């Protein structure tokens, strides 16, 4: 098997963004996932979000671990450097890359197998360090490439394709992220592009670690009756707690629709995220309340979706490490090497 490039035919009527690029310029090679896979819808949402945010594709680093979801970075932004790393180890690669060059946009794509079992430690610690990146956790409750074993996000009582029931409690990335002090926690559904695109945009704009947990049904191994991560089950039990709209800084003047009783949160670069609570009194800037609400819905068998929590003024890795504003990769050698004089002076004390 080799990868297949998409034909580069371009329709003259295609819409262009501020960089003069069309949405096609944000695509990658042909997907090799199963037809109907939730992950492909997420890829489409990513393409749309980057296009609409006018981000130059080559100023993006796209990273992943191992698994079905981790294959998807080849399917978007073909002009971005990509890194398909090791199972569960993408967060450390992203952390080091970001430490070296904080001026690129970072998107990491992972799955529930990759992030919640073998990579649970790295996932947690990237959140603690508040690495400035969008972290897409494409969550389907099963291991697809190894043919259908339960993952750590499988719900109690959910049925595998062959009928066995999962007995162990699931790890819920969203509530775990809230307890770990994550600065941006969202959840969505691969089948809801209208909700997903603004969440991706807000996550990319957020300075810090932005987790988007996306229920993304596996059509081959986990879309049957009795599964709690199927299309049907997610559509029925998905519960949007907030409606989110992302308003980029440059577009603000053009957006003048009625927002009703909405709350606005200004991001570090001046762009705005607007919320409209669907659930009465839900406040996505209150971590404890967000957690409590999430748990309440979970107990009712419902999956809270939307931008669950945001702390727009959080300090990212570079702020915590007090690094210079210019990317470390661009600091000239002369500024890094202290020279012979300093060496002699240092050694005069080593006697």
């Amino acid at each position, binding site marked *: 098997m080799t990868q297949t490039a998409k034909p580069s035919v371009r329709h003259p009527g295609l819409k262009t963004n501020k960089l003069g690029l069309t949405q096609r310029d944000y695509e990658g090679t042909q997907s090799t996932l199963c037809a109907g896979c939730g992950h492909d819808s997420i890829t489409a949402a990513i393409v749309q979000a980057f296009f609409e945010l006018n981000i130059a594709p080559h100023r993006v680093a796209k990273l992943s671990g191992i698994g079905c979801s981790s294959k998807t970075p080849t399917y978007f932004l073909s002009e971005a450097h990509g*890194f398909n790393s090791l199972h569960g180890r993408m967060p450390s690669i992203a952390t080091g890359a970001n430490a070296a060059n904080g001026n690129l946009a970072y998107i990491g794509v992972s799955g529930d197998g990759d992030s919640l079992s073998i990579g649970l430690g790295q996932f947690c610690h990237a959140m603690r360090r508040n690495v400035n990146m969008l972290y897409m956790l494409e969550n389907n409750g099963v291991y697809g490439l190894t043919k259908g074993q339960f993952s750590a996000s499988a719900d109690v009582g959910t049925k595998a394709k062959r009928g066995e029931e999962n007995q162990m409690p699931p790890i819920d990335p969203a509530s775990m992220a809230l307890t770990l002090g994550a600065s941006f926690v969202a959840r969505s559904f691969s089948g809801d592009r209208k909700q997903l695109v603004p969440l991706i945009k807000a996550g990319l704009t957020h300075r810090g670690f932005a987790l988007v947990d996306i229920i993304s049904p596996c059509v081959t191994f986990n879309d049957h009756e009795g599964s709690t991560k199927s299309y049907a089950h997610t559509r029925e039990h998905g519960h949007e707690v907030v409606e989110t709209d992302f308003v980029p800084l440059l577009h603000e003047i053009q957006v003048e629709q009625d927002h009703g009783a909405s709350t606005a949160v200004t991001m570090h670069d001046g762009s705005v995220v607007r919320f409209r609570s669907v659930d009465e009194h839900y406040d996505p800037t209150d971590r404890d309340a967000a957690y409590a609400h999430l748990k309440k819905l979970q107990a009712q068998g419902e999956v809270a979706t939307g931008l669950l929590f945001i702390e727009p003024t959080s300090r990212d890795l570079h702020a915590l490490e007090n690094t210079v504003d210019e990317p470390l*990769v661009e600091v000239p050698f002369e500024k890094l090497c202290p020279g012979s004089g300093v060496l002699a002076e240092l050694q005069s004390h080593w006697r």
Partner: protein
Amino acid sequence: MDQNSRDRTNDFVVKIATVNGTGSASANGMLMQAMFRMGVPVSGKNVFPSNIQGLPTWYEIRVNKHGHLARSPNVDLMVAMNPKTYEQDIAEVRPGDAVLFDSSWPLEEDLFRADVLFLGIPLSHMCVENFKGARARILMKNIAYVGAVAALLSIDLEVLEEMLEEKFSAKQHLMDSNKLAIRLGYDYAKEHFDGLLRVRIEAMDANRDSVLMTGNMAAALGCVYAGATVGAWYPITPATSLMDSFRGFCADLRRDPETGKNLYCIIQAEDELAAIGMVLGAGWMGARAFTPTSGAGLSLMNEFLGLAYYAEIPAVIFDVQRAGPSTGMPTRTQQGDFFTVAFASHGDTKHVLLFPGDPTECFYFAVKAFDLAERLQTPVFVVSDLDIGMNDWVCEKLEWDDAFVPDRGKVLSAEDLQEMDQFYRYLDVDGDGIPARSLPGVDPKGAYFTRGSGHDRFGRYTEDGDLYQDVVDRIARKIEGAAEALPPPEVRLANDATVGLVTVGSCRGAVLEAIELLAEDGMVLDFLRVTGFPFSAAVEEFLLSHDLNIVVEQNRDGQLKRLLMLETAVPKKKLASVLDYRGSPLGADVVVQGVRNQLGLVAVEAG
């Protein structure tokens, strides 16, 4: 040689037995530093437990006017400050030599030996009388024995006092109490034991161009000078002080003067898996990045090291070796990681290794490692050990050429990329096995996918056997081509020697001393110290040109010998081993004995 007949001035060993966590380490270091300042060749070896407080610890100082500074078991003065180890410490002293002990409490009758000189000083009593508080009394007792040893060995008191003045220039009360403690020990010993020891120190001028430093300090400084900006690590003995030093140097030397912000980023990772991952992420992005670790950490890094090798990402790894396997003896030295680093990770791999023999080389090899890693686009290991990494060594002063330009290897700029028809990440265009690389964010034409899964020379995913093999064969050529770019081996040839001693790393001093000792008995031996892997042609030539090559190293399985067997044309029968893997720095006595055994000579008593 008869130890009683030879001149013992500037030729002796002092061993100090104390309790871990009582502050004796800095007192012992002071003693060694004073000897260094008197211009005499000296070494200090810290033998310490994996413990914070309470277990026994030793410090061995060897003074040798000829510059032989390997560890020596021939203790002339035992400073026995730990009653729990009195028995073994006193047993170690040779007939006619001396034990200094704290006579505040009587020594048990059966510990006394008729053939050893017992020098009792009521150190604890003196400290109780002169200092307040339990902690101060314990600390000052250490300083008091420093004073006593100074008197016994004729160490210049002014040198010690000058050191205290430098150290405590801002803390007058500490300077006063330290000076008093020195005096207490010094005066007592002078009054009661003057001239009793048959060893003494006399000022020389051997250290004019030398400094005292540890290998970890020197390696950290090498990282600063090489322009490393990202360091990721997980704490592990004996590598921890490397990152501690890097942090210390950076705090002084890598602050932007205008903003006060850092021109570096140090990340303490959640484990070694993440530490090496961060290094690879930073290296992929174009930063010079490194991680210090030891054997146990390397085991965890294996998975990522295979990725770095196959995806061709530069990285520098410092392996400060300790005694394994498993947790082993984490505070004891060994050279047991050669197999692990040479072929780290599953599948076919082979890595570039540098073996510094002392702290000076840690500095230069660290700088070299970053150049090699970027030139070759692969992980490069600087393989030292606990003895080099953590002990203070008298070293040649470091030099820096301000005209130095780092070798970034084949990194394409935006202009380079724009001029190309098409960029292919893994295409070898000039036949040296090294393709060009592009860095993220530079130009859309440089974009490619980095992956540990099968890829072809164009950087595309593949499961086609021929396309896969094409790439891994080229990587093998690339690594083989590195051999002559590594620091050349150290070779010392005698006249017509048919036997060579081959060694590596911190064993250097003991082996060179052994060659001199054996020469005194008429045995002529050549010397080869391996400094890099893959082995250069000079290594193979040396091995082939000798009838027998005795490989001296600190591990059970003769790992260097076996690597030589695998990687050079030398016949197996031309190789033999002398091994010492008990966890202590190597002594010449072990080498002399081992060589004699190998050559079928009559064993003689060591020393």
